[in-house]
């Protein structure tokens, strides 16, 4: 066989790392991304990246990182790869440091670490409050270097539509659409690595970026890739509510000493800064003395929900609580948190150094994603690999803060070489696949697009359908889940899918038609929403981020298992597989202990 050909779809942290690893082994890569990779969603990550480098004399270790991750994820993650990730993390930080990431430093010129949720150690390396941006740029620069050596070819402004499967069900290429010319084209490859990120847009308003629709994952799912643990959706406790987006106030605000509180007196109308110390209720510190403000996200989110909705102690006029950093010296704030405080200042118009911030939980992250094996980041379809937020492997039922960046990079590091090994091992490469196979897929995709462009009688507005989907998903499939409401959600999704067939594509031009692309994504989102809701409905227990008041306990006997959704001719089926708990025995997850 000649030189293998690898395609990477998605240029966030995971995709760029995978690209670097493949290019480094001398094999050319085609890299596809909707947005220029430097604008990928990973730029939004604020707080930091975990690695137990134990530079603070706390006796931290990779095993403790592993234990925190598994425990924080409520024992739903397969353990061997998580252990591998935690062991690789210190070297990953070193690598990023060598790539020039401007991590914060100690006086000795070493990396500084801060504390994040769900751990008692200072384990999070950070670059101000824009760590994700800094990491993404470092990888972007390395890829640009390979690009200048012609080892990487970028297709920015292309969206992935589907994979090209041969008659044996093996991936032989991808089909994409140029978002400028709207041309649909296939690209042969021997293996494709998918790193298409999060799915926040399914929930309407989230902390995610605009392109985080999960459309690619859904397309793959519809072509036979399993989707695992879809029901595990992380809601971040502290975000600024907004009509277009909920902007995150990173856990690092609490890591640097930020405190969450509400007035002791419900309905207290005074401004936050005028309420004296002894009239404030620091409910996280009160309820969880050991971890305090740094309990894991699911725990903090539910606590805020309880304060606001059950105890009616939220702030006057809006569902929100205070996140307060005003007691931290200004100099520290500017050095370590400037990036996020600036966001609050710009969008709310209030200086958070002077006044406590008003925050509320918002959909943030999907623990679930494309199913991959527990060694190679390979999906069940030969030739398809996945890494980053779009796959399910590392975070179980709840992700710890600052663990995503490390899982994205680790996943990319594994996926790249694994795809190369697979491609080298193929008996016959994509160049021998008959053109008709590619043409078949191209025509199928072209037909879908043409049908949308030619539908003139549509009445339904895509944005309206999307809003309704987001609203019902946020209401019923995030923090608190009742089976009756989940059922209602499925009915609503049916209705939306039906209305979707009557969509009115207001723009029928063939040039940079963003509506066309959005509508195609919306169709995929509706299916993903169903996978998530069905998984949630089926899982009658409470585990990590999945909370059902009617089933308030974790049920290991029945539910210590991975949800695997599959798609056959329009039907979604759920099956389950056991979790690999070979390294740590599941134990009760409780953060209420005394310090």
């Amino acid at each position, binding site marked *: 066989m000649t030189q293998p050909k690898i395609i990477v779809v998605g240029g966030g942290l995971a995709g760029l790392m995978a690209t670097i690893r493949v290019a480094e082994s001398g094999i050319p890569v085609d890299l596809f991304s909707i947005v*220029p990779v430097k604008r990928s969603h990973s730029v939004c990550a604020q707080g930091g990246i975990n690695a137990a480098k134990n530079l603070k004399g706390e006796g931290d270790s990779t095993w403790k990182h592993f234990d925190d991750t598994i425990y924080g994820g409520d024992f739903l993650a397969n353990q061997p790869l998580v252990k591998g990730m935690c062991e690789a993390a210190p070297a990953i930080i070193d690598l990023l440091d060598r790539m020039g990431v401007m991590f914060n430093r100690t006086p000795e010129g070493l990396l500084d670490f801060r504390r994040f949720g769900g751990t008692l150690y200072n384990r999070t390396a950070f670059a101000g409050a824009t760590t994700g941006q800094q990491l993404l740029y470092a990888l972007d620069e390395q890829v640009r270097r390979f690009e200048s050596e012609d080892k990487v070819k970028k297709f920015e402004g292309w969206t992935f539509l589907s994979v090209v499967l041969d008659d044996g069900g093996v991936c032989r290429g991808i089909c994409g659409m140029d978002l400028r010319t709207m041309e649909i084209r296939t690209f042969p490859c021997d293996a494709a690595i998918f790193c298409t990120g999060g799915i926040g847009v399914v929930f309407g308003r989230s902390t995610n970026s605009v392109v985080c629709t999960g459309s690619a994952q859904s397309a793959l799912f519809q072509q036979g890739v399993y989707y695992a643990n879809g029901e595990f959706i992380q809601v971040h406790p502290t975000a600024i509510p907004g*009509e277009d987006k909920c902007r995150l106030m990173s856990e690092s605000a609490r890591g640097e000493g930020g405190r969450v509180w509400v007035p002791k007196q419900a309905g207290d109308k005074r401004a936050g800064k005028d309420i004296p110390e002894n009239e404030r209720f620091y409910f996280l510190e009160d309820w969880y003395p050991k971890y305090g403000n740094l309990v894991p996200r699911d725990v903090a989110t539910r606590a805020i929900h309880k304060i606001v909705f059950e105890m009616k102690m939220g702030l006057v006029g809006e569902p929100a609580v205070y996140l307060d950093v005003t007691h931290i010296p200004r100099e520290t704030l500017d050095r370590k948190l400037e990036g996020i405080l600036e966001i609050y200042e710009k969008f709310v118009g209030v200086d958070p150094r002077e006044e406590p911030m008003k925050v509320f939980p918002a959909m943030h992250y999907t623990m679930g994603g494309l199913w991959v094996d527990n060694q190679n980041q390979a999906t069940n379809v030969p030739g398809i690999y996945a890494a980053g937020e779009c796959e399910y492997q590392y975070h179980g039922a709840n992700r710890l803060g600052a663990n995503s960046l490390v899982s994205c990079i680790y996943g990319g590091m594994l996926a790249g070489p694994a795809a190369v090994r697979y491609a080298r091992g193929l008996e016959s490469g994509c160049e021998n696949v008959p053109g008709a196979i590619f043409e078949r897929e191209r025509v199928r995709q072209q037909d879908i697009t043409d049908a949308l462009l030619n539908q003139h009688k549509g009445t339904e507005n895509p944005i309206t359908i999307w809003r309704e989907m987001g609203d019902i998903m946020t209401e019923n499939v995030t923090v608190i889940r009742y089976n009756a409401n989940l059922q209602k959600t499925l009915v609503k999704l049916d209705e939306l899918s039906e209305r979707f067939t009557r969509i009115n594509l207001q723009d029928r031009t063939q040039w940079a038609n963003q509506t066309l692309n959005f509508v195609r994504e919306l169709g995929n989102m509706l299916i993903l929403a169903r996978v998530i809701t069905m998984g949630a409905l089926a899982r009658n227990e409470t585990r990590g981020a999945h909370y059902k008041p009617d089933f308030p306990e974790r049920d290991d006997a029945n539910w210590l298992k991975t949800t695997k959704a599959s798609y056959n001719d329009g039907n979604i089926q759920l099956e389950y597989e056991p979790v690999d708990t070979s390294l740590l025995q599941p134990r009760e997850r409780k953060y209420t202990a005394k310090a």
Partner: protein
Amino acid sequence: MADKTFIVRIKRQQRPDESVRWEEYELRYRPHMNVIICLRDIAEKPFTRSGVESTPVSYDANCLEEVCGACAMLINGTARQACTALVDDLEKPIRLEPLTKFPLVRDLVVDRSKMFEDLKRTHCWIPIDGTYDIGEGPRMAPSVQEKGYPLSRCITCGNCLEVCPKVNQRDPFVGAAIVSQVRLFNMHPTGAMHSAERLEALMLPGGIADCDNAQNCVKACPKGIPLTESLAAVNGQVLVHAVKSWLRGE
């Protein structure tokens, strides 16, 4: 009570080779609106003020929190990010136009690939040996990190290029953002070993000498990057490099 409304005027162009037209939309006011919400409102109801059906406006946006750089445009004539442009703070009617220094794609979308190409031309990366584990990176004084970090926050939005009189169709000037990146990489202990490559690149056409010190860039930068400081610093570096390599072959 009747809803409060306001007007948005948008410069539209279906394709680069098609004619320009201005459209006016009347939108319902809500608190905390930004320009992105305006554009979404229009996408949901693409009818102009006079009731004519139009198409949703094409625009770039991703992060919606001013860290991806995608959404730069001219808002009331000012080059800035749309996601942080709050309706409350803007003079009405709000006027939206695409950036003018980059090739137009459609409506408010322009092609900024020039910037990424220029990052390539100027070798803006740290040439590491490989991704395998070879231990820790070089130590770095906190004071260096504190200088470098603000530079590394550049979101490649292009606002600094938009306002620069020397960035235009006649002049290939790379612009302040790229020069500032060169400074960043020259500051890093490993990057400094290769500073000559970057400085040489900046002596070529479109390089540092094109800067004529109008100092607009620094005022347009949404990230508050000290661009004029970077320009001056790199100017000095290039000069020293040029003289040294000429006189002493260094």
